[in-house]
């Protein structure tokens, strides 16, 4: 599976957060907080929760830091007490038999109040954060419907004029505008998670869930399905692409167009279109402006513009695409898309035909 580059990070982490990251070098494997131009932490851990890129994620991270440091303090005190007791009160032959102390009401009250106090602080901050992170949708919010599938994501945008833009596995949003993602599923449960944007929110059958966040910086943010959803749960990944408002407008405009027509209907692209729109592909995939109007698989109208394929598990290039078309279940166990090539496949595609299909799909800019 090919690597996918993630853009450099957010402006330097605030001191509090950087202090939190100072704990990480406890493990040699962890890179500390970056700051400056390139963020080494984000480069090393592209799906990290330690680089919030929206207010929602930041509130969640700040609360995490409070609980983390309180926890570390309590843990260290407890460990120190255990260590002291083990050294100080270890058995040695000359020691007198210990005095039998059965308890102390004062101490019991003290060590009931101490954790109660810690818990009270966390409780206040938690309830505050709960209400901050579950706001009513603002009026200017951009609404995107996200529908979980086995094992990919469908994203639907309503556009003026009643049209709907449908895409898959890459959710495009503008920075600076609150994004309201409506979460749905028509199959098993899934969970929408782009760690730098927000914590998880489940997609639950017969319900619509909501997640609201405002991306700050343009970039590509990794995400993945958080709720076990079957054989290829591990391979249900996604990208959130945050554009500048202008970039987003351009993207949306392009998405509204029907699929590009092949320049030469007898060339590889044109032959590929024949195969795709008149063959088995059309039964499941939609390519706007062609006879392909299937609804069960990802919309491919502008497939050529996607960075990755098969729900973010591979770079979208000719080689990977050919392998995917030939035998999707080999790359994604349990995939509903059957193998179209190889021994035992009825009406198998020839490598040549696959290359036409690849050429056509890549032309769908």
């Amino acid at each position: 599976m090919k690597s996918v580059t993630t853009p450099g990070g957010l402006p330097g982490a605030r001191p509090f957060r950087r202090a939190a990251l100072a704990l990480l070098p406890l493990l040699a494997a962890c890179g500390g907080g970056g700051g400056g131009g390139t963020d080494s932490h984000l480069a090393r851990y592209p799906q990290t929760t330690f680089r919030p890129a929206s207010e929602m994620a930041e509130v969640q991270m700040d609360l995490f830091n409070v609980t983390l440091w309180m926890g570390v303090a309590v843990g260290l005190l407890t460990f120190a007490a255990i260590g002291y007791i083990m050294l100080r009160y270890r058995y040695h032959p000359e020691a007198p038999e210990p005095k039998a102390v059965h308890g102390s009401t004062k101490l019991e009250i003290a060590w009931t109040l101490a954790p109660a106090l810690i818990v009270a602080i966390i409780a206040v901050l938690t309830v505050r954060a709960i209400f901050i992170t579950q706001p009513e949708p603002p009026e200017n919010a951009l609404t995107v419907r996200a529908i979980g599938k086995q094992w990919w994501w469908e994203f639907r945008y309503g556009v003026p004029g009643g049209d709907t833009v449908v895409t898959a596995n890459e959710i495009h949003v503008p920075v600076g505008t609150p994004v309201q993602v409506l979460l749905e599923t028509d199959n098993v449960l899934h969970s929408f998670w782009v760690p730098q944007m927000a914590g998880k929110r489940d997609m639950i059958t017969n319900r619509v869930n909501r997640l609201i966040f405002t991306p700050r910086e343009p970039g590509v943010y990794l995400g993945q399905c958080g709720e076990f959803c079957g054989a290829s749960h591990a391979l249900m990944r996604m990208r959130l692409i945050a554009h500048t408002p202008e970039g987003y407008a351009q993207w949306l405009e392009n998405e509204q167009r029907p699929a590009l027509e092949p320049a030469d209907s007898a060339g590889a692209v044109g032959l590929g279109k024949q195969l795709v729109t008149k063959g088995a592909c059309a039964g499941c995939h939609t390519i706007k402006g062609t006879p392909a109007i299937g609804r069960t698989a990802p919309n491919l109208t502008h497939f050529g513009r996607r960075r990755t394929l098969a729900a973010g598990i591979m770079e979208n290039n000719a080689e990977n695409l050919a392998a995917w078309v030939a035998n999707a279940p080999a790359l994604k166990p349990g995939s509903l898309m059957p193998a179209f090539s190889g021994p035992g496949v009825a009406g198998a595609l020839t490598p040549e035909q696959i290359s036409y299909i690849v050429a056509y799909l890549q032309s769908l800019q």
Partner: protein
Amino acid sequence: MASTATLAPPHAPAAAHAHPTGIWSWITTVDHKRIGILYGVTSFFFFLVAGVEALLIRVQLAVPNNDFLSAELYNQLFTMHALTMIFGALMPLTAAFFNYIVPLQIGARDVAFPRLNALSYWVYLFGSIFLNVGFMLPLFGGDAQAPNSGWFAYAPITTNQFSPGFGMDFYVLGLQILGLSSIMASLNFIITIVNLRAPGMRLMRMPIFTWMTLITAVLIVTAMAVFTIAVTELMFDRVFGTNFYNLRNAAGQVTGSDPLLWQHLFWIFGHPEVYILILPIMGMISETIPTFSRKPLFGYNVMVFSGVLIGWLGWGVWSHHMFATGMGPIADSFFALSTMLIGIPTGIKVFNWLGTMWGGSIRFTTSMLFSIAFIAMFTIGGISGVMHSAAPSDLQQTDTYFIVAHLHYVFFGGTVLGLWAGMYYWYPKVFGRLLDERMGKAHFWLTLIGMNLTFFPMHFLGMFGMLRRTFTYADNMGFNEMNMMATIGAFLIAIGTLIFAVNLFTAWKRGKPAGHNPWGAATLEWSIPSPPPVYNFHTIPVVHSRVPLWEKNPAVADVVEHDPESSEFAEAEDEDEGQGQGSHIAVAGVDLGEVPTPRDKNRMSADELGIHLPPPSYWPIVLAMGVSAVFIGLIFRRVDGPLHNLWLLTVVGVFTVILSIYAWAFEPGHSPHH
């Protein structure tokens, strides 16, 4: 009881009742001690099975994009690892201790319903085997079809539409069988503890382990009932076509089913289940720590009430597993706060254990090392637990490896380490021989280092975005090194566990003889020989204190001065118990003093002493077979071909159940040969 002694022939061969042997005697046994050993051996076996499953998972995850296991097999393994650990290994391991130790601690001769106890065991055995049948299908030429949707089995992935194979049938049917076993066993323990305590053992004189057993048993009865509802609904969906969780009915119409119903039912069971797995362990180390610190438990009352409180609050926190489902800010706040509250009684327990050790004279036996490690590791798991209660930040952690780390610090660092503390502590009572301390220390250090190497990096993996229940991960995510560390750690644990297994086996025949009370402990089970005679106590003791054996031990005379209740103490059989010729015994280089040699009375048979014991019975195992057949037959209802007719096993099972209950009810209450 004594009146039945007239039934005994005056010169019955002593050995007949004292030490019946042979497989048949184990199959028909109703002796709580033998059932305890059966529970222990079986659950240790399933612990090894689940451990092997964990190792396979760790091998698969050692490197990115690995294809050592297929996605499908991986999903079966992580599901079965959890199910086997929880229902096949850890719960029954605690049940082994309940069975063996609790009647001894309360001065009873057996549990209240000995045949019911045997029935619980056999049902558990058949249920655990049944749950694993899916892995045996390759032996018959099929694919492995064990449950594959996680132990939490969130609908609707568990319905026929998404799980058409037999995997989830084994889940719904197997867990009903195991649930029956747990409920029967727990009712038995509740009734035993409430009714069969020795004279003078008031509730607030009960050993803490017995107390925690009582709380746990109440939790099991109530929690398992809820789970049974959920699983029965799912069984009806899968086998009979109801639509509790099906997205579409048989005609293809959308049903409007609500998957959240399952989640609520599951976690109303699932969260108390966590306390079911940890409270008995808290009880165990509340026995070991005082013993090895030579001090009575600090804050006994508080320990009891905090245990009750944990069990009680455990009912009001279930939705903290569901913060990501979008319950709304009010519900999120409630469950966040109730979860935080549990941190308080848990913290109190930790402080009281430290208070017990403070000022003590601590002997670092293997059992004590495991107990101290329990406190430390469980503290880590408890702290990350409080962190999860902060709902907004939990949304980043839930379903990631951070949770895997947290739950393993609770279940492995807590439950397993505590169980091993209990094992080193009570093994000498059960088998009359001490486990080897050198092997024990090796086992301890390998386990402690191994578990931290395995589970500590998982905190970071989770925060860096690695999701749980994923069969692989990409190469460029930064997960590689820490996963390799975790895999290495898992194999260290495996080596430690192998040493432990060897220790358990070799000590059985060759361990140092333990005597009555090798650790100088305070509770009643240590007043009788090791292993105890079949009737436990030749004379039922009268209890005047929480620490009956320390009352008369001059070495800890201080106890007497500081215990307001102690002046009343006098053990009924004390006068004729004489200490005889003893032998000194040393553990971990520490002389534990003189071990009394049992006098003849403890070697006498029950008949000679005029003690009535329940006779052996084969109806428990027959009834257990019937119960299992009812559920096994339902599997075949979904099989095509000639095997389909095997669903008649259900009918056979029902008749077997009815017949055995009838025969059971009319079985004579004394030995048939009398």
